[in-house]
């Protein structure tokens, strides 16, 4: 059992990457026991993004440019939306809108009931990160090196701020600040109302990881091999820990537990506040995806689906699905939803 209290607002919904806009990786009491069977399997194009789930509907983007709405209970398609280019971005849901970035440099808002386009907002290069939504504003980064804030209802630009490198990091939005990593190796904190840079903390190489924020601490990985914990107000380094290779995986946080994977093949667990290494476990050859934290198990996709005990890091079970997985599982409603690079989406129970 996980030692920290669960803080999830929802048992069943999973409306954005890592479960909520804080990118906490679940935290909820979702059952994460070993799956015994596949309830259904859905075929689409290669999926590099993560599914999201709201009100019994699973939304999945694919590199063939199609966004699917799938009835989670049955695996039956409700509608699909054809984007003009590949989609690597995990969708985010807010109200009745679904937001996702596209390789054509546009962020799309579509109606989640009908799949009809509501608006699009343009950047100058591909958008792979997921959007963060808070207080009616959508925040997203682009490979053009700019972080954008747009009105969630209309798509009109509130502000844009040029950072130093390509942005593949999904931003985290708080009330006053929005945080993101950049390819220039700097973790940025911007003011949500103006886009003004509040602070920037350099790391030793580019950043492909997305920040998680909890208890006034920003946790993020860098391609310089380190996990960083930064003071959310000042950017001061509270602690950092060196792994064996670069970190593209995004941290998940639950209570005082931080879990993050490294390309060295290990999953690392730390105390959020002290940075003490609780355990590290080799889960595969390379880890680039984020872990998610469920009740009784931490799940990560690395050469299959792997579940670990939160307290010890011991591997509880592995599910080989016969396909390469670069996505993030969704733990909800007693099911595990996963997607693969070969284009299958599975509902496992």
């Amino acid at each position: 059992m996980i030692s920290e209290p669960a803080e999830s607002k929802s048992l069943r919904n999973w409306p954005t990457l890592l479960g909520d806009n804080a990118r906490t990786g679940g935290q909820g009491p979702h059952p994460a026991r070993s799956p015994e069977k596949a309830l259904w399997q859905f075929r689409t194009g290669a999926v590099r993004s993560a599914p999201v789930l709201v009100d019994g509907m699973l939304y999945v983007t694919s590199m063939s440019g199609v966004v699917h709405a799938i009835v989670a209970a049955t695996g039956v398609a409700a509608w699909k939306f054809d984007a003009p280019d590949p989609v690597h971005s995990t969708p985010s849901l807010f109200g009745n809108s679904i937001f996702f970035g596209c390789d054509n440099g546009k962020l799309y808002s579509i109606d989640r009931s009908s799949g009809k386009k509501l608006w699009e907002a343009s950047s100058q290069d591909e958008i792979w990160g997921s959007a963060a939504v808070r207080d009616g504003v959508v925040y997203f980064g682009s490979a053009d090196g700019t972080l954008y804030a747009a009105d969630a209802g209309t798509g009109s630009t509130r502000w844009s701020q040029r950072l130093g490198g390509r942005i593949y990091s999904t931003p985290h939005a708080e009330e006053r600040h929005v945080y993101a990593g950049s390819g220039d190796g700097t973790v940025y904190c911007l003011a949500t109302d103006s886009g003004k840079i509040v602070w920037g903390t350099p790391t030793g190489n580019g950043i492909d990881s997305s920040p998680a924020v909890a208890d006034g601490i920003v946790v993020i990985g860098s391609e310089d091999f380190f996990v960083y914990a930064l003071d959310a107000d000042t950017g001061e380094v509270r602690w950092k820990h060196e792994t064996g290779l670069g970190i593209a995986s995004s941290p998940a946080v639950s209570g005082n537990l931080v879990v993050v994977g490294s390309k060295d093949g290990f999953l690392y667990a730390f105390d959020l506040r002290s940075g003490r290494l609780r355990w590290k476990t080799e889960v595969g050859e390379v880890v680039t995806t984020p872990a998610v934290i469920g009740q009784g198990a931490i799940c990560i996709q690395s050469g299959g689906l792997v579940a670990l005990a939160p307290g010890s890091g011991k591997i509880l079970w592995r599910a080989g699905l016969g396909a390469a997985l670069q996505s993030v599982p969704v733990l909800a409603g007693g099911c595990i939803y996963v997607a693969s690079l070969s284009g299958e989406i599975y509902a496992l129970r």
Partner: protein
Amino acid sequence: MDRRSFVKAGCLGSASLLLPGLDPMLRGETAPAVPAIEVHGMPGYQPSPLGMPGLFPGRVVEIRDPKAIVRNRVSQPIVSRLLDQAMKGLTGATSGREAWASFVEPKDVVGIKINPSGAPACCSSPEIIREIIAAVESVGVPRRNILVYDRYSYEIDTGSYQALLPTGIRIVGIQDAFVSGSAGYETGIYCEASFFGEWETRSYMATVVAQEVTKIINVPTMKDHSASGVTGALKNLAYGTFNNVARTHLAPYSFTNPLIGFMCTAEPLRSKAVLHVMDGMRQVWHGGPLTQVQEFIDQPGILMVSTDPVAMDTVELAAIDKKRAEKGAPSVWARDPSSITPDTNAFFHDAGKNLFFRQPGHIAAAGKLGLGIGDLNQIDHRVL
């Protein structure tokens, strides 16, 4: 002129007897015979004098600094210096910009062919790619006309190249790894052969190579390869440009020799590949091309530049085989059937095991096809 070259079985059969690297086992009773290979280049393409073996046939410039990589971290300032010195050493130019101007013009669309297949443990270092981008920019090529590409988008993703390279350039994964089809490839430019009775006997050239770029800077890594012996400049170009190439090796046999060389003769690939920058920051001496086992990956901090991929790979092959000998591993030329295993786990963790009878002779074979010099005694190997 129709540049299609057409290699019939009889021609190849005759050639194979002359190629010193062609595996003798392939002439044995149990090994499959070398099939006919047809190379269909772009019709009417005018060959470039910069094409392989390029401006400096047989010349390989090597430079190293052990401090260029420390515990898997590559030093940007040191590789910047190494690349500058190596390019001046190759060309005789007095400045880096002058050296690069020998190969690239402001009007060019420059493709940088990376090798991300061993990412993250051993792949083209983003630090070197950054320096190449900066050098190409220094000649006057705008960033929008620089693209970094490889065959599989998911391998580029694993290497985090998207996040680590400068804004404004394009990063192109020609295909999604697990989605078949010919999208992204030219169906009129191909190599055709039936190796093991496969249903698709053609390998098509990538559109980005055939139609988009005007020059290619090739950035291979120093790795042994379970099927081809080593993977260097030739294999990085050939198997990263054409699709449907895994069909050439079916354990324990491999037809990487001679297909790699033939693919590199196909126009416009041959003409556009004007420079090869070998990333030897890491050196995989066993388990390549995909190993993540650090025990088999040295970090010598080497950089090599050449216009001649055959000469470059010949130097690489000698270095890898020397390292294997130092480590007590059998030569990549070894043909001991007892070393062959179908167990990939055994291969990845035992330097005495392999999945295929390796085919390092593909390099000499490419030399016979006119792509460069494959005799170490004739190679102008300059160590700075």
